């Protein structure tokens, strides 16, 4: 076992016992990055000096015999230093003071935030070591990380394939041992889908559970920060650090944060697991369906009751999402005008400067979505597209409300296929959008979801199982995910790289 292969909780135990130091652990992960990241390309920015300095500080706390409580512990944050000395990566759409934050875009290529996002401040307050910033589809718009303006990230299980997206850099880094855990963001599946394609755990919390202060906005009614880890225990630990109310984010929920690790009992006897018939569709890869069906049998063996449920408006989630998210994006991205920050291309007039700056600063997918959103919001089309989509969103949310009256958790595939080849879907946006078909509804309904590995296809590519819970149902999905994980060994597999 290499140090870089440890889970967060395994490393926590070794660090607390004094068997390894934070500097040793951090150096091992940095060496691993140097060894494999030329092939994986998970990172956009590496900050090894910052990381080693944070690691030395983490070790010094122990040497001094004290583990001081953070000066201003955030409400609900675990006491002490749950991440002391743990190397973590952060998706490059989350602001880090003094460290470039590009959103995978040319338009923010030189942007250096003057402040930390609340989630980054919380990582630091918990003692984490920050390794750098991970690759993303431009402004988190994509399902493969191929829309990064800089380079695509490669799947550690097969370097010819995508890691999923948009948090593909974070997912690949966790899978390849280039960090012990990572932050991502999930607007339509961007934590769960890459976690599925990279064979790791990815949790998208309830809308409002985690502060978005310092998260660069894509679609404000859908965006949420999530965690990517090697097992469910680590997801519970990391979520506990970042969850909670933040006065700087008026959409964050002022609800106490439970001890998520208390959900890790392994006991799911009597729990009701819903299987939505609409999530088993003709076009999906047969091996994915087989693996998910086998996982359901495993849950039944563990004492859960399997119940068929219906989410009748599932088919409409994709068009609803691809009207609402672009509409919100077209408004959020209006701020990139070349005045206060970011790229400026000087044109013949101020208006031409805006147009040239945005025309050259944004990549094709971002321009497509801004145009789609602008169209859906424009006079004459607002009712037919945007308002219609918002109404159908109500129906989709209602489907989940009714289903959760019958069951505790809903289990389905995370993605209809395993990782596809780099370049396979870049020419056809609609085909790319279809890879999010099983994850979008959770964001539209504002609920929570987690991916756990549930098998491999014939080519050795990971398959992901999705568990969806009601609003603030993180304890429930963690409980079921942990019980399943402990009864299987998929999470112990590591990619061949």
């Amino acid at each position, binding site marked *: 076992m290499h140090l870089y292969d440890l889970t967060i909780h395994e490393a926590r135990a070794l660090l607390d016992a004094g068997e390894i130091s934070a500097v040793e652990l951090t150096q091992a992960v940095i060496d691993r990055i140097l060894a494999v990241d030329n092939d994986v390309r998970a990172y956009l920015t590496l900050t090894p000096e910052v990381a080693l300095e944070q690691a030395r500080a983490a070790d010094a706390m122990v040497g001094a015999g004290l583990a001081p409580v953070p000066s201003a512990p955030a409400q609900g944050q675990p006491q002490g230093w749950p991440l002391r000395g743990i190397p973590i990566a952060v998706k490059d759409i989350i602001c880090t003071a003094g460290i470039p934050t590009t959103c995978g875009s040319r338009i923010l290529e*030189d*942007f*250096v935030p*003057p*402040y930390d996002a609340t989630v980054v401040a919380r990582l630091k307050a918990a003692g984490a070591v920050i390794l750098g910033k991970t690759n993303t589809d431009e402004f988190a718009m994509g399902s493969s990380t191929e829309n990064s303006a800089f380079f695509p990230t490669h799947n550690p299980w097969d370097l010819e394939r995508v890691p999923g997206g948009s948090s593909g850099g974070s997912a690949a880094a966790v899978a390849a041992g280039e960090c012990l855990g990572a932050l991502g963001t999930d607007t339509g599946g961007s934590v769960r889908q890459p976690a599925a394609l990279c064979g790791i755990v990815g949790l998208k919390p309830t*809308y*409002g559970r985690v502060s978005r202060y310092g998260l660069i906005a894509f679609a404000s*009614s859908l965006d949420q920060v999530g965690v990517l880890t090697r097992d469910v225990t680590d997801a519970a630990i990391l979520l506990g650090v970042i969850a909670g109310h933040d*006065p700087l984010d008026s*959409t964050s*929920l002022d609800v106490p944060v439970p001890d998520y690790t208390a959900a890790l009992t392994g006991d799911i006897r009597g729990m009701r697991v819903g299987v939505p018939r609409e999530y088993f569709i003709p076009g999906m890869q047969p091996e994915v369906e087989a693996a998910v069906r086998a996982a359901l049998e495993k849950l039944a063996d563990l004492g859960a009751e399997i119940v068929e449920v219906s989410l009748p408006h599932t*088919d*409409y989630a*994709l*068009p609803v999402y*691809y*009207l609402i998210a672009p509409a919100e994006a*077209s408004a959020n991205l209006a701020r990139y*005008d070349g*005045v*206060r*920050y*970011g*790229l*400026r291309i000087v*044109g013949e*007039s*101020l*208006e*031409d*400067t*805006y*147009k040239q700056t*945005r*025309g*050259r600063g944004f990549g094709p997918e971002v*321009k*497509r979505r*801004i*145009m*789609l959103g*602008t*169209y859906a919001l*424009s006079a004459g089309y607002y009712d037919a*597209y945007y*308002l*219609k*989509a*918002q*109404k*159908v*969103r*109500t*129906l989709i*949310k209602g489907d989940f409300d009714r289903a959760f009256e019958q069951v505790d958790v809903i289990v389905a595939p995370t993605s209809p296929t395993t990782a596809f080849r780099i370049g396979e879907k870049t020419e056809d*946006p*609609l085909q790319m*959008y279809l890879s999010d078909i099983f994850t979008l509804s959770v964001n539209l*309904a*504002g609920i929570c979801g987690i991916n756990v590995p549930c098998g491999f296809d014939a080519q050795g590519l990971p398959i992901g199982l999705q568990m969806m819970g009601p609003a603030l149902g993180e304890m429930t999905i963690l409980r079921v995910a942990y019980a399943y994980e402990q009864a299987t060994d998929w999470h112990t597999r590591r990619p061949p790289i």
Partner: protein
Amino acid sequence: MVLTREEVEHIADLARLALTEEEKERFRQQLSAVLEYAARLQELDTEAIPPTATVLPLRNVMRPDEPRPPAPREDILANAPEAEEACFKVPAIWE
């Protein structure tokens, strides 16, 4: 096709995006395909359904209006494409 070339140019103008001729044609095809796919929403009768803008209960969030130290001006201006004497510098809008 749902969209004409003129419509694509109009949308790009509203969104302040300079597009190449090649982009206009490609976006016309790709956006038309997405809009055709989205047309399936019209199958549903939503006459009596209220829209969902956010899953949170809509409410104003208030806080005490207390002064706090602002971010240092030089940190903010450090990201500006062009700055002069503590100001963002922009192209002239009047000749």
